């Protein structure tokens, strides 16, 4: 940390930095959104996959400030690199600029626990303003907090606000401005100081070993950081910024204290809480009513009999809405891109440039944008579930299942997101604490049935399975689709269970899960989160999908055969003249003949293209699965993004614009024959193909996202290898097993 920390802040006027900190679920992000409005930027903390939200605002008196949203924590103590961000942001370590002021958002209904962090910040000698949130909730319980008494005892400004309703924000802004111009009014010094001489000796000894940028000339700050190190450093921890001398001394001092029968952790924590508890009576006029409504709701929502069914019903509604609400938007996007493509095709003469723009560029952008409706909706639902507090209950209900796979209930949200798209789901693993848990979750997310597999399933099921009813009431086609979802989910669970017992074996970490009270969602925050996540998808996955689609177009179109090209142009000219003539039966018949020859040329062109050669090259490896080289070409195409398979098969069979509903494509699939006259596609081949798509890692953007989040090519390689192997084996078993069974 000392080596790469920046120089002291430049002299002269610079924009003051205000850090917004607080416990999780205190309304911290809501306040941050209120302060900065739309003037926000999401980036990454260096070396850690935690979103860093920063923004700008102008205070009422005209002062411009930068605002940083510090990730929510209960304490500044840390064990993981992610938790370390809190102390680095507030004390200005590890490359983070030291804030001129910290605004601590305090949940008035849980005052003593929230004040614990206030004491930690005051020990560090950082100017502090307390934003006392949810006082309205407190009042509804006929409880109240004496903000003035609290300000007096803490020695810093305290402003009552309601982040949700926007009350008290102006007051807070004025207080921030006053404090920035006169920081002394918010620097009262530590509230709690260790009483025992032993602990003081421990802290002084550790403080002596600190580098200058930790101490910054303040013995008080040095002692505070010593207390932080004493609580945080552990023999196995993931902290990165702690100087070796500090680490060694902290471990040594703690061990020595333990040998003397002293528990330094308890001593420090107890010291702070004793300070708070002895003064609570002066701030709070309590009336023990608690959060009755939330508790009553939980007697139903966490009920042993009703809890799980209600959860399943909620998820079913979410999924039904996800598919049915997104459908009109998806159709609109598809037809818009089709229309633009036609427009360009009409405007440009036939040329390679035209093909590149329509089949490469426009189709590529289209295949990215088409995912947006489902992704937006999924993050809307997740945002609502999180903001209302129900997600904590879901984590509760799912914990036992998740535990059996070596994960905890928090892995549920990322896995759920995987049903829309693996890329944002992989980004969502950041809510988990341990790198190992995140890696494990990332290794199974790509098995979830994402929306890109749906067009493939729709095409195969529609073409190869009869629309009949099983036992007279169950539609075979829908049943198959549900079966594919169940299949991938069960497999993901099995893979997670296996990995957590082998490659990613780790001691289980105790779960500490806060259950926030239920409340109405703050819509602007939910919508902002939805937009930010979708933007992450567009920039992460979008560029990869676009590049792959263009590369695929190149593979399918080159090399060009001049003879075929010339013949194609002749045919195109003939079509133009025939269409200009009246639509006589004779002209129509000739058009049909030409169309057949055009399809034949397209087929020949494909066979000699790079993609066609690749398809032929891999044919021996996919033949045992029941696939021919044409399917091979589709599989190669699907590595850009799975749904590209459908369009590629359209090209393979010489059908212009094909989608999964296309009757011509279904027909062609139905009619396609092998050399010996047997049909290529049987229901068994279809099943084998769907199993392959369910399991194979055919998504470059997923691999790119995993690479970014794990910072390791080894995991990327492993993910690709195990999924492809699994897909091949499973399809082999399905196809060969089916053949043995006489299907």
């Amino acid at each position, binding site marked *: 940390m000392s080596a790469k920390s920046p120089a002291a802040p430049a002299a002269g006027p610079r924009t003051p930095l205000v850090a917004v900190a607080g416990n999780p679920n205190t309304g911290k992000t809501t306040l941050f959104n209120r302060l900065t409005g739309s003037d926000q930027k999401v980036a990454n903390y260096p070396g850690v996959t935690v979103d860093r939200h920063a923004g700008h605002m102008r205070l009422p008196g005209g002062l411009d400030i930068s605002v940083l949203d510090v990730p929510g924590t209960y*304490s500044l*103590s840390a*064990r993981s690199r992610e938790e370390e961000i809190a102390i680095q942001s507030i004390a200005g370590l590890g490359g983070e600029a030291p804030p001129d002021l910290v605004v601590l958002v305090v949940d008035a209904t849980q005052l003593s626990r929230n004040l614990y962090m206030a004491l930690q910040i005051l020990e560090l000698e950082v100017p502090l303003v307390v934003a006392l949130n949810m006082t309205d909730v407190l009042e509804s319980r006929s409880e109240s907090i004496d903000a003035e008494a609290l300000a007096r005892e803490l020695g810093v400004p305290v402003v009552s606000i309601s982040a949700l309703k926007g009350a008290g924000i102006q007051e807070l802004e004025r207080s921030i401005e006053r404090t920035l111009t006169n920081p002394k009014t918010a620097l009262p010094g530590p509230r709690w100081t260790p009483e025992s001489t032993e602990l003081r000796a421990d802290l002084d000894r550790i403080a002596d070993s600190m580098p200058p940028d930790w101490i910054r000339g303040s013995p008080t700050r040095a002692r505070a950081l010593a207390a932080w190190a004493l609580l945080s450093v552990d023999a196995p921890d993931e902290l990165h910024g702690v100087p070796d001398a500090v680490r060694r001394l902290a471990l040594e001092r703690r061990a020595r204290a333990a040998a003397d029968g002293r528990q330094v952790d308890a001593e420090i*924590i107890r010291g702070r809480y004793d300070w708070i508890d002895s003064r609570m009576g002066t701030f709070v006029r309590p009336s023990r009513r608690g959060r009755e409504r939330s508790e009553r709701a939980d007697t139903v929502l966490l009920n042993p009999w009703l809890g799980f069914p209600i959860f399943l019903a909620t998820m079913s509604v979410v999924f039904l809405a996800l598919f049915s609400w997104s459908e009109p938007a998806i159709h609109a996007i598809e037809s818009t891109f089709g229309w633009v493509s036609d427009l360009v095709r009409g405007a440009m003469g036939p040329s390679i440039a035209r093909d590149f723009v329509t089949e490469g560029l426009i189709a590529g952008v289209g295949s990215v944008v088409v995912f947006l409706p489902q992704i937006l909706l999924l993050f809307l639902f997740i945002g609502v579930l999180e903001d209302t507090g129900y997600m904590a209950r879901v984590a509760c209900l799912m914990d036992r299942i998740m535990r059996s796979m070596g994960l905890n209930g928090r892995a549920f949200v990322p896995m759920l997101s995987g049903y829309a798209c693996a890329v944002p789901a992989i980004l969502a693993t950041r809510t988990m604490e341990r790198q190992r848990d995140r890696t494990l979750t990332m290794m199974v997310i790509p098995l979830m049935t994402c929306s890109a597999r749906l067009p493939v399933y729709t095409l195969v099921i529609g073409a190869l399975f009869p629309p009949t009813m099983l036992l007279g009431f169950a539609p075979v086609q829908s049943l198959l689709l549900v079966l594919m979802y169940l299949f991938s989910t069960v497999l993901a669970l099995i893979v997670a269970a296996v990995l957590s017992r082998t490659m990613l074996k780790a001691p289980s970490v*105790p779960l*500490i899960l806060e259950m926030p*009270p239920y409340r109405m969602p703050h819509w602007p925050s939910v919508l902002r989160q939805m937009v930010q996540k979708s933007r992450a998808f567009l920039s992460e996955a979008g560029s990869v999908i676009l590049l792959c689609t263009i590369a695929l177009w190149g593979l399918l179109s080159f090399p060009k055969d001049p003879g075929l090209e010339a013949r194609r142009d002749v045919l195109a000219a003939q079509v133009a003249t025939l269409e200009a003539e009246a639509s006589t039966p004779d002209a129509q018949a000739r058009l049909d003949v030409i169309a057949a020859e055009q399809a034949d040329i397209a087929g020949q062109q494909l066979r000699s293209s790079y993609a066609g050669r690749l398809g032929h090259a891999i044919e021996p490896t996919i033949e045992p699965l029941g696939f021919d080289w044409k399917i091979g070409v589709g599989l190669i195409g699907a590595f850009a993004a799975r749904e590209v398979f459908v369009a590629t098969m359209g090209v393979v069979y010489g059908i212009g614009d094909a989608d999964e509903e296309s009757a011509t494509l279904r027909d062609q699939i139905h009619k396609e024959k092998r050399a010996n006259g047997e049909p290529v596609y049987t229901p068994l081949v279809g099943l084998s193909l769907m199993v392959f798509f369910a399991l194979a890692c055919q998504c470059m953007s997923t691999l790119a996202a995993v690479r970014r989040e794990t910072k390791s090519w080894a995991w990327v390689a492993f993910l690709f290898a195990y999924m492809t192997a699994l897909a091949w084996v499973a399809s082999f078993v399905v196809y060969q097993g089916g053949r043995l069974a006489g299907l």
Partner: protein
Amino acid sequence: MILRLGLSPRMLHTSDIRPGQSARLLQVGGERSFRRRLMELGFLPGTSVRLVRRVAVGDLVEFEVRGGHISLRASEAVALVFESSR
């Protein structure tokens, strides 16, 4: 002192407490970082803690401590030892 309490018959475990009942914490055990986190959340010896409910499906126990509601796994909540009120 801990030794004496360890032998005391007045110790209660989470499983001995009925939902809705409050009890005073006597000891916080468990692995160090878990214990530190619990203490920082307010689970300190001497603090009154209410057992809000048991979530049977997930096998979790929900506690109320210092106004906050925290769920722990039943198997991990054995780290908390309470004092019998009588």
